[in-house]
């Protein structure tokens, strides 16, 4: 009987030692830094997931290969110098756009694959589902294109986001609309309708817009939530037409946006302004398709960067060439740019930590102070507030011109550089049909 406490104590010591051994990984032993890439590669959000995967592969390429002229973190040299040249390895998992599967896969990545960092899931809704899992295991996690403000407002210890949240970006749109009046824009824009889908991302945008619209001098005349995956929006367009708002604030995914365009064209309805926030407006394939129909001309929306000006940056061009190796020749869209920026920050953090121990990574992450010259995007830098939100992430407002490209129209200093005359009012359907199409 006297042996029992002895055996228990020895067992406890062994267990404690085991836990310590599993958590502390000396830098010298690290050959590969394992980053879990949990993405929606199939299912409803697959088009987003594939852009994030290409972005991840681009960062893996940049870190593991030598790009001497590339002025982004870990561009020159191979691997992580802070970890003796260890390489970056992505462990990619597809959650089929399902939150329940994402949760299971997050657990597997942490307990079976022993990842050092989890990046994902790419959509705010599913990210919010896996956050508690990652938090309970205590390893760093990031989702850079996720824009829901709630993700960083929960007081989580292990979650970071370099990209701007919806509050920042939707505020950009309403600040533009408010200040535009003082800058020679129209003074007769009084009413607004909100037209959003029903998931977390869209509803966050809707709530923020509903709060900001009256402050910007708009009366909300209609607030419509539609079903994600709708097959028709004809009745919704009827209601919008009846309400006849000056401004339509639309947050919809590409399939629903194209259905809206078809139904609005059929009804012959076009508001004076269509303002958007992410969704189709961030989707490169939707933007490219508009060049064949002039469908996007005059649409304005928030972006995390002045995409027409950023292309002048040499580092942007080089990173884009690497990205195109994986994307079957597609240029980086703004979602890919957000993801690459965030993952390069992650690589820099791992390198500065000189360890893959979670506490060291967290410390390095919190100490981040990255200047704009290291970024491919128009943030003022990367520095985190106490919620782990990048407080230097900024938003801009762009508008699609007759050339089918986005042009910066706010903030005013960048707009001046972009030298683009705002299209107002939004062109009618007949004008879109008769004008030459950029892609034809």
């Amino acid at each position, binding site marked *: 009987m006297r042996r029992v406490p002895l055996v228990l104590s020895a067992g406890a010591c062994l267990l404690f030692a085991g836990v310590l051994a599993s958590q502390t990984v000396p830098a010298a032993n690290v050959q590969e830094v394992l980053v879990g890439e949990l993405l929606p*590669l199939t299912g409803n959000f697959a088009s987003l997931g594939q852009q994030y995967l290409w972005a991840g592969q681009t960062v893996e390429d940049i870190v593991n290969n030598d790009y001497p002229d590339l002025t982004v973190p870990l561009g020159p040299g191979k691997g992580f110098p802070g970890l003796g040249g260890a390489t970056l390895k992505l462990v990619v998992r597809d959650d089929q756009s399902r939150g329940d599967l994402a949760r299971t896969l997050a657990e597997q990545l942490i307990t079976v694959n022993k990842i050092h960092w989890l990046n994902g899931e790419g959509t705010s809704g599913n990210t919010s589902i896996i956050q508690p899992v990652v938090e309970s295991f205590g390893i760093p996690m990031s989702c850079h294109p996720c824009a829901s403000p709630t993700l960083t407002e929960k007081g989580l210890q292990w979650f970071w986001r370099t990209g701007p949240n919806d509050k920042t970006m939707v505020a950009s749109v309403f600040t533009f609309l408010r200040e535009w009046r003082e800058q020679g824009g129209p003074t007769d824009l009084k009413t607004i309708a909100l037209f959003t889908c029903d998931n977390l991302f869209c509803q966050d945008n809707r709530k923020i817009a509903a709060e900001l619209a009256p402050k910007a001098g708009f009366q909300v005349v209609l607030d419509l939530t539609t079903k994600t995956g709708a097959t*028709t929006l*004809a009745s919704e367009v009827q*209601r919008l037409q009846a309400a006849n708002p000056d401004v339509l604030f639309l947050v919809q995914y*590409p399939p629903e946006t194209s259905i809206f365009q078809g139904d609005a064209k059929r009804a012959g309805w076009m508001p004076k302004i269509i303002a958007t926030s992410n969704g189709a407006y961030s989707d490169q394939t939707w933007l490219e*398709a508009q060049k064949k129909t002039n469908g996007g001309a005059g649409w304005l929306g928030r972006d995390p960067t002045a995409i027409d000006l950023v292309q002048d940056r040499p580092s942007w061009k080089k990173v884009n060439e690497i990205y195109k190796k994986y994307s079957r020749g597609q240029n980086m869209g703004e979602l890919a740019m957000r993801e690459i920026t965030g993952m390069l920050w992650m690589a820099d953090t791992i390198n500065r930590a000189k360890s893959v121990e979670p506490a060291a990574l967290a410390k390095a992450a919190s100490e981040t102070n990255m200047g704009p010259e290291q970024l491919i995007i128009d943030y003022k830098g990367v520095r985190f507030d106490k919620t782990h939100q990048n407080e230097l992430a900024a938003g801009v407002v762009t508008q699609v011109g007759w050339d089918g490209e986005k042009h910066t129209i706010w903030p005013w200093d960048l707009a001046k550089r972009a030298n683009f005359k705002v299209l107002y009012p939004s062109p009618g359907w007949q004008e879109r049909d008769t004008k030459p199409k950029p892609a034809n």
Partner: protein
Amino acid sequence: MTLLLQAVVNGLEMGFLYALVAVGLTIIWGLMEMINFAHGEFLMLGMFGAWWLSVTFGLDPLVAIVPVGLAMYALGVLIYRQLMRRVQQGDPFTQIFATIGLLFLLQNSAVAVFTSDYRYLSNTVLTRLSGANLHVLGVSVGVPILIGALLALVLFLALYLLIDRTEFGLALQATAEDREAAMLVGIRPQKMFAVAWGLGAALVAVAGAILANFFAVFPQVGFPFTVLAYAIVALGGFGSILGTLLAALLVGVVQSVTSVYLEPAFKDAFVFASYILIGLCRPQGLFGRF
């Protein structure tokens, strides 16, 4: 009043498109009583086929329905012979899981080949007509969808004549009703089932080729249509072609009218609520027989 009338017309137009999607399922599920959860993926393949023929050879989707329909007929027969014939001998649950597996196989194959990008058709006959309307009593009727609706009507009429007025159709019905009895009068059930799968796949692919004019084409596009198609076939009554058409129109109108007066996010909930209500009174569907 005009608002309501316009909503009804919009609903009828969409109803015809839904009917187009449901018609293939009427044969496989409604008539032959085989479950096919990959129905939406056949639709997706039809859409991709039309898109690919349009961007590669400049073929208009209205012309592409011929090669797409033929190719999908062959695929439907192949799927029956290689997969469903064996699965058919087992438990009905085996059919469910086999076709769910087929769903993922086809969807993920499309992701691998085409990526998950959204594709759009432009410069086709129907997209060039977008925005063209007929005006009747203050209500506008979209010309492109009207053409789609007419095509749906033609397909339904052809299918009705084939199933109800030909020896082949009667053989198909006999096989569905009693396989052994059909064999006694010289009908080969395996052949009938294979043809039914071929026809079902071809019809929904033709629907896909037409729908590609109105909707974005991407690997997951089939799901919302499949859910509605199942409700439509059950609502119309299993095996009833006329019932399927009327149920599709009803679903379109319910969606459209409720979205005008109530929260549009719940439009499908109203459709399924209608299905439950009708199911309580007529469990066999509107035109079905026990």
